[in-house]
């Protein structure tokens, strides 16, 4: 929908030279496009962004004072971030490369320095925690990372030791320079796993030959010379990392799960040492059957030796606090904690405390502090942690202890739950903030319309009910009108009441109770499914989380598919969403049916799915409760319907011969089509095989079922119509060649009819490789690939047309469309790589389309589809000008005004979701990845909305003035006429 002014501009100047016109066109076009940008006062008005960091792996608090405000986390998304511990807001965040290259192996904090080993021992980094700046970065020698620790000499921490598979190195803390590096002796046989420094002149490296012996090597801190090397018999020991800790004055404490015994060994002993065994039985301790006991110790300061107290975990909810006596080989139990979920040590000043989380009741846990020396409970230190029934169980405890003014120990606690959420709690149990970090990994989402308000629902209900006769109908109508009047009066009263209050006090809190559809359906419920198995319901207007539901027992590699079976349109039936969760290894699937508005699980009988599910398809068939039917195809090509009521099965039997579906086995390159039979079995009706030796299928996309196309064709310059080939069953299949040589690599694009298996078009993009991103919509496919020859990203657009005549204009049937469409294609250079791509979607499809392109820089580009038009002429003619076609230019522009998220970068965009709103001009956009960004786009500008600054006063005053002017002039004219008549 471009303004007609453009058209007029050109038709007025036919005499201007063509060249000038071209440039003028470009200039004008760019001028026009500039106006698409966001105005300063619109920032944050229709959009919001939420930033996440992912699942916390390491967390540290700034310093042990009460006033400290910072909290540092390193996460599985390769992010190092700092939160404000008072609000939970992100202070700063460093996003490293994805994948193993950026993995954070360890994170140590000392004073202002945060030390980090990144990329399996590739880099050692030091960050300034105050401002989040990088102090220094050192490249480490090759070899996989094992362990790292701070090394102190004479009470000051000056070095950091990094243990790798075959070498140990010592680095200065101040500048990262390497002090020394030594190869570890006998690196093939011995697995070196731990490094220990207790503030002495030596650094100890512990290695193990599994089930044989333990090796202890002492290095001199000065020059890295080996001062001692011992070998201790330990046939029961398989891993130092998992079963040993250092406690007290350098005593190695190990636990053997087979014999239920603790072993102690003084590391620094001069003579040949030996493990001394203490049976757990002798301490009156018993390990839960099948549980691997775990030791937890604490070294409050690197310059001093660790505490002689330590925890031994004996079961999932059983911990014991033990103390190593001064003699170094006897152990005294201090306190038994059963039940106890989590334990943690915390140190402030000279005091070290142990925090223990114990279950209190169904909905809460209690956290208490205990004195480490005696095991006594500290008074007034109970914190209540509320257990969310829709959340995960507590997973990890991070305690921030500090000394209060009266020298007693106070603390705050950060609890990490299984659903990756972080909750920060203050005494005596106030939840300060919660961060839902599961949202850093959204897998799929849907937007669902909000329900109607009570009054709207009342009106709707009137139509839903069966008619009882004339008189009751009139009564019903009258009663609903009365209710409407009542609601309107209440609304007026509220307006009047609130008008007297200052504006700041009027709050529009969104709660689940007040949710209702707005006039233009711009506010919707975003249902987001995350990889951790937690579902969220988010208000699209404010971004606040309205409900959450954690699905336990979801495998980490599960695949999700979210299906809206019933929308909000069928009052009084509640909307219904179904989440298909498929285990990728076994292929077995489970269904989770829920109400997308409230997040509650529906109590509907679910079908038994004993076999792996290959395909699911949502039919337009609805049952008597207006729920669309979901068909699940298992690996024996049997079909299960859900819901499977009698009504549905009957409908399916009637329609069976017109229900077709396709299956794709990308590992065999096989595409096959099936037809449903009356007995819900299937028959294979077509097969296309792309040999896997040549190319492999990387992606298949159909069209979105809720997509509307308003115009059937395009009017060309000569006033004839070029009809679009609008096949709703068309699949775009993208392949990549198995040969990756830059000269021979190619990307294949196949357009296949999903019903008949007919290959509509088959194109090969030579010298190209993936990753291919593509959008398939209307009558076009846009794909992006990497050109291996020219080393650049390119966009290609395919458009399909039936020609100037339609074969059958009333209905489209794949079975009756014998002529192949005309295919037009054009390719452009795109000056940036992209991460994802999606097309805008509006309610009626009148608005012109834009492509939303997620760039690695964090910007989301709204690229007009007009630029990707294979009919862009190379030479401008009268006809192409008439059609508003932009002359072909090989390079696609990126204008910063097209960035719909202006400076709100969204990192690692994984997907863009578009949904139509009630306004034809407006499309709702959600970009998700590490961050979530929601906004509205107006591809053809807001042609159906009056502007915010629309001058109502002016227009009405002009109207009134004109009205009075007419009245007066009429009167004057009358008088004049009368006078003339008298003359």
């Amino acid at each position, binding site marked *: 929908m471009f303004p007609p002014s453009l058209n007029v501009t050109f038709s007025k100047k036919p005499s201007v030279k063509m060249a000038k016109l071209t440039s003028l066109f470009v200039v004008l076009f760019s001028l026009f496009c500039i106006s698409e940008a966001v105005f300063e006062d619109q920032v944050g008005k229709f959009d919001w962004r939420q930033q996440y960091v992912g699942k916390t792996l390491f967390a540290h608090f700034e310093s042990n004072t009460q006033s400290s405000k910072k909290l540092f986390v390193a996460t599985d998304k390769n992010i190092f971030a700092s939160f404000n511990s008072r609000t939970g807001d992100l202070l700063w965040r460093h996003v490293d490369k994805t994948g193993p290259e950026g993995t954070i192996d360890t994170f140590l904090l000392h004073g202002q320095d945060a030390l980090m080993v990144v990329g399996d021992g590739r880099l050692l980094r030091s960050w300034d925690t105050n401002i989040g700046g990088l102090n220094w970065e050192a490249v480490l020698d090759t070899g996989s990372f094992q362990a790292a620790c701070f090394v102190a000499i004479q009470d000051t921490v000056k070095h950091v030791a990094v243990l790798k598979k075959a070498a140990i190195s010592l680095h200065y803390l101040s500048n990262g320079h390497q002090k020394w590096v030594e190869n570890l002796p006998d690196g093939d046989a011995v697995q070196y796993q731990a490094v220990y420094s207790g503030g002495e002149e030596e650094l100890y490296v512990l290695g193990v030959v599994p089930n044989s012996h333990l090796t202890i090597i002492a290095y001199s801190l000065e020059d890295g010379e080996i001062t001692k090397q011992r070998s201790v018999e330990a046939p029961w020991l398989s891993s130092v990392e998992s079963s040993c800790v250092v406690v007290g004055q350098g005593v190695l404490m190990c636990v053997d799960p087979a014999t239920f015994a603790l072993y102690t060994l003084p590391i620094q002993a001069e003579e040949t040492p030996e493990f001394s065994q203490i049976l757990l039985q002798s301490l009156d301790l018993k390990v839960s059957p099948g549980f691997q006991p775990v030791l937890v110790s604490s070294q409050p300061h690197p310059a001093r030796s660790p505490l002689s107290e330590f925890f031994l975990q004996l079961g999932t909810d059983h911990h014991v606090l033990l103390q190593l006596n001064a003699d170094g080989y006897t152990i005294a139990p201090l306190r038994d904690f059963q039940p106890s979920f989590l334990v943690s040590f915390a140190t402030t000043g000279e005091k070290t405390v142990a925090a223990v989380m114990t279950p209190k009741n169904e909905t809460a846990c209690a956290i208490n502090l205990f004195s480490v020396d005696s095991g006594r409970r500290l008074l007034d230190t109970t914190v209540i942690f509320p257990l969310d029934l829709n959340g995960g169980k507590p997973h990890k405890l991070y305690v921030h202890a500090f000394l209060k003014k009266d020298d007693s120990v106070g603390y705050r606690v950060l609890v990490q739950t299984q659903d990756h959420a972080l909750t920060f709690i203050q005494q005596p149990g106030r939840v300060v903030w919660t961060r839902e970090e599961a949202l850093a990994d959204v897998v799929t989402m849907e937007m669902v319309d909000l329900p109607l308000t009570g009054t709207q629902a009342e009106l709707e209900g009137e139509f839903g009910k069966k008619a009882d006769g004339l008189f009751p109908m009139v009564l019903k109508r009258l009663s609903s009108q009365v209710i409407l009047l009542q609601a309107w009066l209440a609304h007026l009263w509220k307006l009047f009441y609130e008008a007297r209050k200052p504006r700041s006090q009027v709050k529009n809190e969104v709660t689940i109770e007040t949710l209702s559809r707005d006039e233009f359906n711009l506010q919707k419920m975003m249902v987001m499914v995350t990889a951790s198995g937690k579902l969220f319901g988010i208000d699209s207007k404010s971004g606040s989380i309205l409900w959450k539901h954690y699905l336990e027992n979801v495998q980490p590699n599960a695949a999700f598919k979210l299906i809206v079976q019933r929308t909000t349109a069928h009052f009084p039936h509640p909307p219904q969403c179904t989440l298909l969760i498929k285990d990728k290894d076994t292929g077995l699937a489970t269904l989770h049916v829920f109400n997308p508005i409230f997040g509650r699980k529906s109590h509907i009988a679910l079908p038994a799915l004993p076999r792996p599910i290959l395909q699911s398809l949502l039919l337009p068939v609805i049952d008597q409760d207006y729920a669309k039917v979901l068909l699940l195809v298992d690996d024996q090509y049997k079909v299960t319907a859900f819901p499977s009521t009698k009504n549905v099965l009957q409908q399916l039997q009637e329609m069976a011969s017109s229900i077709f579906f396709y299956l794709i086995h990308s590992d065999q390159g096989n595409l096959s089509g099936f*037809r449903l039979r009356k007995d819900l079995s299937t*028959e294979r009706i*077509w097969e296309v*095989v792309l040999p896997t030796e040549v190319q492999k299928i990387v992606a298949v996309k159909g069209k979105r079922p809720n997509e509307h196309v308003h115009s059937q064709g395009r009017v060309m310059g000569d006033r004839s119509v070029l009809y679009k080939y609008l096949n709703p069953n068309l699949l775009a299949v993208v392949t990549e060649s198995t040969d990756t040589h830059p000269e021979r690599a190619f990307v294949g694009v196949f357009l*296949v009819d999903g019903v008949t298996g007919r290959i509509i078009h*088959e194109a090969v993009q*030579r010298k190209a490789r993936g990753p291919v991103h593509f959008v398939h919509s209307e009558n076009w496919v846009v794909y992006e690939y990497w050109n291996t020859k020219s080393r650049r990203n390119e966009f290609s657009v395919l458009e399909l047309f039936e020609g100037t005549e339609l074969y059958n204009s009333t209905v489209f049937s794949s079975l009756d469309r014998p002529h192949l469409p*005309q295919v037009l294609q054009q*390719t452009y250079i795109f000056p940036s790589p992209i991460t994802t791509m999606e097309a805008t979607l509006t309610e009626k499809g009148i608005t012109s389309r834009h492509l939303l392109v997620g760039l690695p820089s964090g910007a989301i580009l709204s690229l007009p589809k007009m630029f990707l038009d294979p*009919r862009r002429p190379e030479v401008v003619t009268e006809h192409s000008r008439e059609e508003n076609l932009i002359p072909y230019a090989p390079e696609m522009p990126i204008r910063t005004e097209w960035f719909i998220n202006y400076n709100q970068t969204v990192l690692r965009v994984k997907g863009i979701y578009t949904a139509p709103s009630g306004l034809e001009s407006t499309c709702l956009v959600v970009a998700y990845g590490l961050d979530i960004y929601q906004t509205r786009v107006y591809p053809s500008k807001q042609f159906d909305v009056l502007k915010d600054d629309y001058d109502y006063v002016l227009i009405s005053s002009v109207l009134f003035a004109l009205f009075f002017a007419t009245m007066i002039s009429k009167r004057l004219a009358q008088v004049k006429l009368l006078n003339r008549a008298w003359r």
Partner: protein
Amino acid sequence: MASVPRSFLLLSIIPTILILCADFACCNTGRKTGDGLDTDFSGFSVPFEHSFEVDDVSRFRMRGALQLRGGRETSVSLSQSQLSEEDRNTLKEVAVVDGLYKIRVPRVSLTDRQTERQMDGYLTAFVRACSLVESHLSDVITLHTDVSGYLIGVSIVTIPGACRGTEVEDEVDLEAFNTTLTIIAPTNAPQPETALFIERMDIEHEKRGKPQEQKSFFAKYWYLILGGAIFLMASSSAQPSAGGAEEQQS
């Protein structure tokens, strides 16, 4: 642009061979023709089968033989026999119950015949039996190959494609297939047209740039500068008197 000829799309369409068997040729099976072609060293023949059953369970029978010739100019031809009386009746019955008429060809490679690597499996396609009957066995069969010459798909459509429920009275109409056979290789997607664009830009530049560049600043605006100078001179000479006049007025 709109009138891109269809031949552009179907680059490798080779004119097809329509085989109309004479009445006496009912014993002339496709296999026989195929045997005869074995002497042709560059081409080979593969069976072409069809299936139409009232109960929709596939039972493929021989319909004819496809002669394929790979290499630079891929060509394909089909030799097929007439439908027997029994087949005609079955086809009509299938058409009445809205069954499917399926065809299949084995997966073969057009270029890689030396290795004789037999790939297992078939490529299948279907069309509604009623449309085949109503079109009097006029079908268009298309074979699709990939870049390296493997057959990847087959499709069948009838012209006209609709089922209107018209009765086919004449038995003769259902005796012989009127087949149009094509083989389609993938088209090469276009690359960005940089060369052409640069050429066009150069031409435009030349057209516009030359006369303008030659003109210097003075050459362009000499009349303005001259006019300005004259005006300045005139005003400076006239200033004293004018100034005096102003003073007097005030």
